[in-house]
């Protein structure tokens, strides 16, 4: 211990801190204790360590029983101030009921819309992120170049997974699953009951790499051999009554790829709501290889390949390494491989010419912007109305300042008023969200709930604080600036500038509203256009259904039975799906002596007899497929675009070679029709013949559809026992090609309505305020002989000009946005001038209507009432 120990003083700032928070009556004792401890510490440790421990000791003294109470003189002051602010706020809410209601209504609708959108965005962003190894899980894509164009495919060779795992040290694990075309569906039979299957071929390590929780069974072994399958808990529930019962049971599964028996070896938890791939049964990929050897061939594209990469893998470098891996292993140099993060594929799934160009993320962005705009509009209302009321609050500010309030206190007061309002608005908004959530889920096709709200509480609260702050900041900083002397004398010098800002804000609001109106009109017109445009074939009164079994016998007996039903006009079949329009082939040659002419990728549906007649495609030259001519796989029909593309002068009879050994003959030409959705241009098309396709089309006689469908079902059940009959109308299927656009349209309709209503609310408030402030002016004018019309004009003109400016600003922006949205379609509506005219006129009418209600009231007032007051 050093001699002059009594002079050592502990670190100053800690001691100061101690004085700050420690209860006064304990200060001497505890400070003494601490100094003694410090003294002891110095004896034991170095000075710096002693200081450190001392600081810690001080911090550890911050305990409820030792720190100052929030009472005594300090408390009274703060508390009194809070109480005062609350009181003043509530009083001002009560006094200006209209303003308060407008603000509350505007803010809460704005917040509710924002919260809904945030909920939706959050959900979209969460898709596929539930995999535990999400950060390192990648999906191998391939760019296929053909004819100066690049198609991006999310499927690759079945051999790729294993080869990448063996040859690249970066790859920790690799999974292959059957791609979308090779998903085993069909029906599963157990105990004479049939269940619709939605299967997935997967390599045995599937459940180790992807996170689908295994409830029963060992994830490593459940699909280790070809004879075992694992099913989802929901599926087990519906087949066996409980998940425990499922284990070890034998089921027979019949689909277009195989018809076999399997033993249930495990049960997994069904993919969560935010999984992009849904399936209820998983089996070994080898089953696909057994059915089709191309599934395990370098030149096949039957698999989707997922990789688990090592933590520190440089993705760009890895992409460069694997880019030409298929060229090395196949006889084609058209493929370029690259990887994309597995969970990103949902939002960023769109590629143009091999380059990532967005996808669902576009909608996510669009709605995020809409949310921000709606909230901005609501905030603008608040700012406008509070600055408009500035003159009323000036006296309050003056008196407070005269008594001694400083500016900070006033800013604090105004901010707390606006934050208080936005908290009330949040409560209302949450109520609104709860109210409209079922409807919102219906429109957006989601299953959002407020149960997951715990995670959103913090963002929601910060959103509210931000809203309150933004909305309240202008009035707060603006009002608190006034000098008490001028204010109390009644001079408001800078109200002109203030009015400009207000007008500017209204312009912003209405510009946004006009853009919304333009957007809504364009989206709805386009949707309408997609439904009404003639596609070149019939889709009304045609039902379509699939027979999903493995039986490929001649469908003729089935057709014969169907034709006996009086309500059936005609029947047809094809192989593959018609509306998806995803069937295409390359490798055709049409000039004698050449092969593989420029390798064009032709759309190429494979249809059966009577298909062209049933769908009402128009034959312009030659004939349709016919039994009389014994048509088979060597007969083909072109569309006009194909004739033009191949530059054929006499298409009928032209020989077209395909691959190494097949020669086909053109027997007819059909008029161009829309193959697939209107997102796609009409392209050269080669219709091939397949007699035994399993997608059926039945044209119904109008009038007795329900009855006929029931009869069709009966025939179906007789001919295909154990298969599930699930018909849909071709027209409905076509409509669902635009599901994503329909959702956007529905949502933006509602959002636009909200934006416009909130804007009008603001204008209404402003008009009320202007009318009120001009009461005397109106009174004087009327006594001097002004008519009601003149008064009306006087009050409306200001707003007319403002809204007109807003229209001028918003029309070009609206045009630009609408135009870029329509680029998504190959065939779209014209952006004619009247769309913008309607938007402009409706905005103007809305503004006049809103202002009018207030103005007429003011114009009709008896001047005596307004002038008497003085």
């Amino acid at each position: 211990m050093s001699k002059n120990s009594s002079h050592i003083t502990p670190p100053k700032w800690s001691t100061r801190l101690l004085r700050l928070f420690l209860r006064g009556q304990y200060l001497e004792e505890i400070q003494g204790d601490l100094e003694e401890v410090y003294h002891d510490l110095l004896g034991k440790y170095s000075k710096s360590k002693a200081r450190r421990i001392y600081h810690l000791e001080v911090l550890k003294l911050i305990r409820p029983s030792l720190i100052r109470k929030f009472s005594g003189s300090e408390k009274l002051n703060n508390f009194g101030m809070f109480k005062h602010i609350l009181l003043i706020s509530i009083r001002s809410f009560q006094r200006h009921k209209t303003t308060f209601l407008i603000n509350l209504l505007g803010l809460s609708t704005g917040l509710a819309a924002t919260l809904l959108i945030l909920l939706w965005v959050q959900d979209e962003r969460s898709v596929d992120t539930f995999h535990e190894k999400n950060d390192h899980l990648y999906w191998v894509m391939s760019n296929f170049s053909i004819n100066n164009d690049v198609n991006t495919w999310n499927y690759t060779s079945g051999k790729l997974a294993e080869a990448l795992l063996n040859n690249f040290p970066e790859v920790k694990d690799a999974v292959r699953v059957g791609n979308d075309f090779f998903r085993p569906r069909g029906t599963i039979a157990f105990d004479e009951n049939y269940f619709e299957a939605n299967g997935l071929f997967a390599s045995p390590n599937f459940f180790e790499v992807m996170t689908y929780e295994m409830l029963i069974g060992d994830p490593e072994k459940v699909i280790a051999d070809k004879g075992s399958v694992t099913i989802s808990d929901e599926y087990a529930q519906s087949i066996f009554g409980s998940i425990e019962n499922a284990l070890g049971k034998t089921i027979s599964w019949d689909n277009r790829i195989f018809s076999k028996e399997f033993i249930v070896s495990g049960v997994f938890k069904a993919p969560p709501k935010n999984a992009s791939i849904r399936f209820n049964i998983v089996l070994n990929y080898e089953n696909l290889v057994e059915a089709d050897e191309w599934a395990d061939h370098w030149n096949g594209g039957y698999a989707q390949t997922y990789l688990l990469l090592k933590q520190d893998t440089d993705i760009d470098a890895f992409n460069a390494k694997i880019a030409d891996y298929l060229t090395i292993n196949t006889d084609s140099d058209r493929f370029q491989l690259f990887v994309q993060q597995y969970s990103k594929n949902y939002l960023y799934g769109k590629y143009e010419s091999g380059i990532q160009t967005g996808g669902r993320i576009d909608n996510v962005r669009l709605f995020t912007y809409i949310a921000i705009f709606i909230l901005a509009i609501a905030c603008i209302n608040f700012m406008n109305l509070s600055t408009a009321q500035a003159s009323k609050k000036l006296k309050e500010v003056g008196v407070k300042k005269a008594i001694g309030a400083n500016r900070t206190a006033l800013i604090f007061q105004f901010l707390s008023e606006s934050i208080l309002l936005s908290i009330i608005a949040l409560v209302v908004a949450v109520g609104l969200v709860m109210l409209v959530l079922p409807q919102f889920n219906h429109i957006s096709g989601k299953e959002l709930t407020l149960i997951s709200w715990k995670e959103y509480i913090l963002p929601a609260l910060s959103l509210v604080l931000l809203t309150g702050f933004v909305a309240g900041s202008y009035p707060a900083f603006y009002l608190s600036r006034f000098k008490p002397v001028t204010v109390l004398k009644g001079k408001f010098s800078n109200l002109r500038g203030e009015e400009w800002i207000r007008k500017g804000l209204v312009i912003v609001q209405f510009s946004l509203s006009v853009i919304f109106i333009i957007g809504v009109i364009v989206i709805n017109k386009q949707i309408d256009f997609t439904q009404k445009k003639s596609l070149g074939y019939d889709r009304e009164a045609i039902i379509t259904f699939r027979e999903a079994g493995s039986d490929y016998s001649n469908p003729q007996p089935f057709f014969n039975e169907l034709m006996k039903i009086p309500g059936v006009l005609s029947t047809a079949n094809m192989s593959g799906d018609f509306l998806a329009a995803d069937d295409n082939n390359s490798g055709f040659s049409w000039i004698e002596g050449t092969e593989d002419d420029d390798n064009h990728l032709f759309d190429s549906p494979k249809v059966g007899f009577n298909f062209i007649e049933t769908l009402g495609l128009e034959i312009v030259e030659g004939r349709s497929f016919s039994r009389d001519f014994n048509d088979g796989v060597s007969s083909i029909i072109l569309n006009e675009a194909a004739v033009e593309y191949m530059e054929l002068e006499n298409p009928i009879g032209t020989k077209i070679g395909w691959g190494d050994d097949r020669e086909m003959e053109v027997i007819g030409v059909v008029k161009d029709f829309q193959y697939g959705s209107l997102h796609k241009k009409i392209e050269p098309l080669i219709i091939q013949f397949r007699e035994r396709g399993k997608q059926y089309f039945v044209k119904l006689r109008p009038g007795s559809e329900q009855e006929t469908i029931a009869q069709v079902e009966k025939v179906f059940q007789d001919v295909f026992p154990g298969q599930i009959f699930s018909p849909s109308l071709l027209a409905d299927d076509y409509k669902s090609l635009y599901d994503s656009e329909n959702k956007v349209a529905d949502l933006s309709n509602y959002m636009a309505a909200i934006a416009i209503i909130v804007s009008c609310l603001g204008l209404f408030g402003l008009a009320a305020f202007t009318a009120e402030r001009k009461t005397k002016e109106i009174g004087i004018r009327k006594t001097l002989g002004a008519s009601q019309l003149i008064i009306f004009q006087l009050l409306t003109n200001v707003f007319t000009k403002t809204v007109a400016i807003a229209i001028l600003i918003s029309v070009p922006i609206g045009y630009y946005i609408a135009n870029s949205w329509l680029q998504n379609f190959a065939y779209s509506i014209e952006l004619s001038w009247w769309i913008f005219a309607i938007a402009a006129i409706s905005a103007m009418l809305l503004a006049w209507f809103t202002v009018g209600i207030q103005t007429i009231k003011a114009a009709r007032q008896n001047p005596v009432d307004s002038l008497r007051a003085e």
Partner: protein
Amino acid sequence: MKKTKLGEFEELVLLTVIVLKEDAYGVEIKRELEERLKETLSVGSIQSALKRMEEKGFLKSEFGEATAVRGGKRKRIYTATPLAVQTLEEIKEVRTQLWASIA
């Protein structure tokens, strides 16, 4: 038991106060307890226990002498109240009975 509860740590501090008699002030209690428990304690934990017990009526206190080491600040000497002694005895009784019934 009694309405006024005595925590485990509080009980230890209280006993130490009784043991130390007229030396029972903050730092000395801390030193004594640290030695017996073989662990480091913070001034905060001791002080808050003392203050809580004073409020509950287990302790009384008065200022003692000031020393140079304390920068001229006075100590506060704590003494246990009859209530504290009684409560401690009750606790001990209960424990003894419990141990007895284990054996």
